[in-house]
């Protein structure tokens, strides 16, 4: 055997070795027709944009069509029920935020559900659903504690809006109020969207709102000031573009729920393990793809990836805390 042939042989062997090593890294693709990403809201919102961002990049990874299916209704419960009604074969996944995933519905739903939190498992978490305390640029409050002090001094004098009612956001607010000893002292009202609350901050109806701020257009927005962002200080990524104080820092107290909200991909727990592995691999690959990250960054929502285990720990903890706090919600939010 000539030296040249020997080199080619070594090269081929290395290539085969590398390929087989790669094949061992990537779990076997079980998808032979299509993957359906169920968005439990109608077209046009943040959750829809997240699902469609995956759709645009995922087909290159999994080699089958990716379909985004919008199923609105019931505050995301209809889409969740739909995914649960599908066979546990991993062909249907659900995208939800920290406020309206199965972990939250299983605690807060006003109706009986045919499933429990144990029937669901996260595939991974890919974005932070950052909410923040927002005021108008000419607000009398320069810090979050200014507003807290005001309601302590004069209960009912500050109108505060949050998203809801009936969502996990009710409990985020109650946790914040409990920590600042201001339960029942705010003029607390509910809005169905961040945009509607923003409009009423400008109209002067609202003094403050706890709404979505994780779009870059909120940075230096001339009409709004973000007094604090709901993110845990220990979980702020290195390249995080928002430098507002965290709620925990602003009030000087550690919180469990505020700041624990991540956009998550869910599947059913009884999906075969190797399929869950493949889905995790597929979503993680896309979430770490440069084009996807740039698109998400351009949209104003930085991409990240938290694996199944981390996501499961996060959601289990949130679920337990929601259960603990539900009686408080039932007492203070009359439905």
């Amino acid at each position: 055997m000539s030296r040249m042939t020997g080199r080619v042989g070594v090269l081929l062997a290395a290539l085969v070795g590398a390929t087989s090593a790669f094949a061992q890294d990537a779990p076997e693709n079980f998808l032979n027709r299509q993957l359906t990403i169920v968005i439990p809201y109608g077209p046009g919102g943040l959750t829809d944009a997240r699902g469609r961002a995956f759709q645009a990049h995922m087909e290159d990874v999994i080699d089958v069509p990716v379909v985004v299916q919008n199923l609105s209704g019931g505050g995301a419960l209809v889409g969740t029920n739909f995914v649960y009604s599908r066979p546990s074969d991993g062909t249907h996944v659900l995208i939800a935020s920290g406020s309206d995933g199965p972990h939250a519905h299983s605690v807060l739903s006003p109706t009986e559900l045919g499933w429990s939190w144990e029937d669901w498992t996260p595939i991974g978490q890919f974005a932070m659903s950052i909410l923040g305390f927002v005021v108008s640029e000419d607000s009398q409050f320069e810090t979050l504690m200014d507003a807290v002090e005001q309601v302590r001094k004069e209960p009912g004098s500050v109108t505060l809006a949050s998203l809801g009612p009936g969502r996990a956001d009710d409990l985020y607010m109650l946790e914040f109020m409990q920590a600042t000893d201001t339960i029942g002292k705010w003029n607390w009202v509910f809005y169905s969207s961040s945009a509607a609350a923003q409009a009423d901050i400008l109209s002067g109806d609202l003094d403050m709102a706890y709404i979505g701020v994780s779009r870059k257009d909120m940075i230096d927005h001339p009409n709004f000031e973000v007094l604090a962002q709901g993110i845990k200080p220990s979980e702020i990524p290195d390249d995080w573009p928002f430098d507002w104080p965290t709620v925990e820092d602003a009030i000087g107290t550690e919180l469990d729920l505020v700041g624990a909200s991540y956009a998550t991909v869910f599947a059913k727990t009884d999906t075969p393990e190797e399929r869950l592995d493949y889905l995790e691999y597929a979503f993680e690959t896309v979430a770490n793809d440069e084009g996807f990250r740039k698109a998400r960054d351009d949209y104003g929502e930085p991409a990240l990836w938290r694996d199944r285990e981390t996501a499961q720990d996060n959601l289990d903890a949130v679920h337990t805390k929601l259960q603990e706090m539900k009686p408080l919600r039932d007492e203070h939010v009359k439905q």
Partner: protein
Amino acid sequence: MYEGMGEALVFLANPLNLAWIGLGTLLGLIAGTLPGVSGVSMMALLLPFTFGMPPETSVLMLIGIYAASTYSSSTGGILYNIPGGAAGVPTTVEGYKLALKGRAGEALTTDIYASFIGSVIGFVGAVILTPIFIVLATQFGTAERGLFALLALVLVGTGALSRADPLRGLLAIGIGLLVGTVGMQPNTGFVRFVKDIPQLWDGFHLVWIIVGLYAVPQIFRLASLEKYFEAVRGLDLHYGFGVEFRRFLGLLRRHWGLFLKTGILGTCIGAIPGLGTVAASWLGYQEAYRSSKTKEEFGNGSIEGVAGAETANNAAVPTTIVPLLALGIPGSAASALILGAFLLAGIQPGPQMMEVNPGKVWTILLGLFVTGAFFVAFGLPFHRIAVYVTKVRPAYLIPAIVAFSAIGTFLATGFELGIYIALAIGLAAVVLERLHLPVANVLLGAILGPTIEKELLLAYNIGGFSRFLQPSALALLLLTLFFLVWGLYRNLLPGLGALRVAKGRAA
């Protein structure tokens, strides 16, 4: 202020960019014409395909779909009595009656040119009045939005829509208000009537109601009125561009004031977040009725009604984007999709946009104008063919309506329960029609009722009764009360007089 306009004109002069706007317009035209397939659904479907495009192009294509679907939401209403969206309902009331008289071509031509005139007025209004609209948008809070919606309900409900039979008209609005109470009360989260059916927690979807109220009874009518359609088949439906255009010019000469008034009205209403093209359409129709010298034609096929509604709702299209451009606040699902496309394009809407990206703002506003021109260019040949829909045999038309309605109803929410609900609403609509209760009034109540309830209750929660005593809210409240009392007095007095006469005779 006009900085960046040159850049925008150069961008729009590029044939490729024009082609994308043209494609958006064409898709919007189709989406608006088919019952239940909304412009928003079409925009969402196409959004992933815009990722590789130049940013302004993708925004323009989406805006083309949005604007054209609003323009064409009345086309199906004129042709087969099924509007493509809520903004097309007032035109449906008059346009379909005109079509049955063999005047479909006239109604469609008026629809298309009135839409264009409206879009021009809206465009000019958006350009000149944007600073005022920003103030208007920031002054209208919960109480004002709720009271404005109530004022619209009172004006239209006691005016044009209840002209023939005020008691039945008001009763139908009441039924609509009841329909609007189904589902989760947004201020409290309390689920009314349907606690065990999460699909209905958001209430009856507007598409289900439109398909139920219009498509289902129409299917019954088509199936049972074969003789009637033989008569329609006898009508001459020749559509001549020149003849119809000259006819429209005559209408414009006679009623130029109506076009101007309703255009300005629509322009102003569009700038109020949350009201948009639907309120503009109804109030434009009401203004046409109020100022008409031939009020008896309303409900029987009034071309003025078509002109007023279409001018107003299309004038509102450019200004519905003003809160998004000027404040960075998306006031509707369509605006949210456009915002998404903006952000993907690296453009951040808001007060700074005119300073940072004046060229892009002008590109969008001028793009809307171009969409209006494209709509005329595509719409006229489309309508020339479309008038013959009124001559299609029911045996072919019924399955087509059933198929498109079912698809549109399913697409609206993604679950089949919507189809059954639409069918149930449709059966109820057949009964309502038998009782001579106007279904347009039911729709008006179902659309405005939830907005009125949500906003007024929110205003009360925020500031108690004193919130309604702030100057702008108080003015709207007094106007509403005045028009309510006046409308009831004017409408019900003749009936009470007749009742007294009847009692006198009986005695």
